[in-house]
């Protein structure tokens, strides 16, 4: 198959039909076709994790995923994390704990952290370190990111909800 093709994607709960070419990455399609520029690109070799989105709930590198291969799947990008104008507790915790500096890794960190908490609502510090290790951050030294995830996990457990 060559040339353009229309595929269906569900992004942040919204159904989309987009015209893609086979060589287009999910990153390109999200940013250039759907105008969802919250997903960032950086290294293009899988090393920095900046382009992470959740595909059917799992952290994926959108820069190394062909859009055509994830057709009909559920994609969550950073734009879909807050709901009804309410921040996700992880988002709030990142701000309150100073876990955000330049913010360029933040969408990837948040989505990776969400996948972790969905999988394991009560992670240890070590499990958090392990799970987020595929996302690089040049600003924070990771300390406050880990603190923020610990605290958000606790709050989500306490509330029984990811939102306030």
């Amino acid at each position, binding site marked *: 198959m*060559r040339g353009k093709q229309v595929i269906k994607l569900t992004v942040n709960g919204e159904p989309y039909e987009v015209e893609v070419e*086979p*060589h287009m990455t999910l990153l390109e399609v999200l940013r250039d076709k759907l105008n969802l520029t919250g997903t960032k690109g950086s290294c293009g*070799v899988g090393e920095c994790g900046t382009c992470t989105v959740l595909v059917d709930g799992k952290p*994926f590198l959108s820069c190394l995923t*062909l859009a055509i291969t994830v057709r009909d799947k559920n994609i969550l990008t950073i734009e879909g994390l807050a709901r009804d104008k309410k921040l996700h507790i992880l988002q709030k915790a990142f701000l309150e704990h100073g876990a955000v500096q330049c913010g360029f890794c933040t969408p990837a960190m948040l989505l990776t952290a969400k996948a*972790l908490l969905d999988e394991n609502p009560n992670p240890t510090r070590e499990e958090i370190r392990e799970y987020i290790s595929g996302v690089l951050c040049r600003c924070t030294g990771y300390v406050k990111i880990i603190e923020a995830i610990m605290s958000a996990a606790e709050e989500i457990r306490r509330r029984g909800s990811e939102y306030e």
Partner: protein
Amino acid sequence: MVRVLTPFEYFEPKTVEEASNLLRDYGEKVRVLAGGVDLLARIRRREIQVEGLVCIQRIPGLDYVRQDSEGLKIGALTTLRTLERSQEVRENYRLLFDAIHSIHSIQVKNMGTAVGNLCIATPASDVAVSLLALDAQMKIAGPSSERSMPLENFYLGVKRTALQPGELVTGILVPPLPKGSFGAFMKLVRTATDIAKVNVAVRATLRNGGCEEVRIALGSVAPTIVRARKAEEALRGTRLEREAVVEAAERAAEEVNPITDIRSTAEYRREMVKVLTRRAVEKIKVEAGVKG
């Protein structure tokens, strides 16, 4: 350098046979796309040129991990993460678990398949080194036939495998482990998420305190992953006494042929083969409760 991939044709076969026919028809011009982690990065960096990709992701029946009397069976689409989370792997094939667990990026493990990892044919693969120690078999399908081959014979050189035109790997079989099996995996990296400067996997069968059988696999120290056969000999039949272990480690270091690259130097790698081999065997001794 560019930020985008080159345009290519895209095939999505529904069966292994269809995939294999495409591979046969197009030959060198196309590649199998599994998770894409390695392949797409290389295409973007223009390290390889492709005219088409044969995406096997939607072929049914290739995503499994199960254990039966023949051993542990892994499909071509089984991701590293699936293996890491599999109870069979964690409990019964600890050596493989440890190797996969040492890969830190959750993203890479969610997308990357074990078979894809092996098919890159890099000597640095942690998965390959552990599976070599475990004597894994590659299940291969061609246009008209299927065959299987020990992983040990699968590599011909850097980025070169024994796959023939039209062939693809459909799965991996890890034979059952005999009673008294122990394993140890070790690697050295620059930073935690890096690929190995050197990695070592040792699997040994111990009976009554004696080493009945042992396989030592080494990575990143030759054009392909290698077995340290002379080192194995030095251990086989011993009670893993300190002298035997030291002797094996020395021999292992002599058997390898490392190079200097951006990750490390030849000299260091050779030295580390010695250290890691010794440490791996020592770890097995501790686990097996072997004294001395």
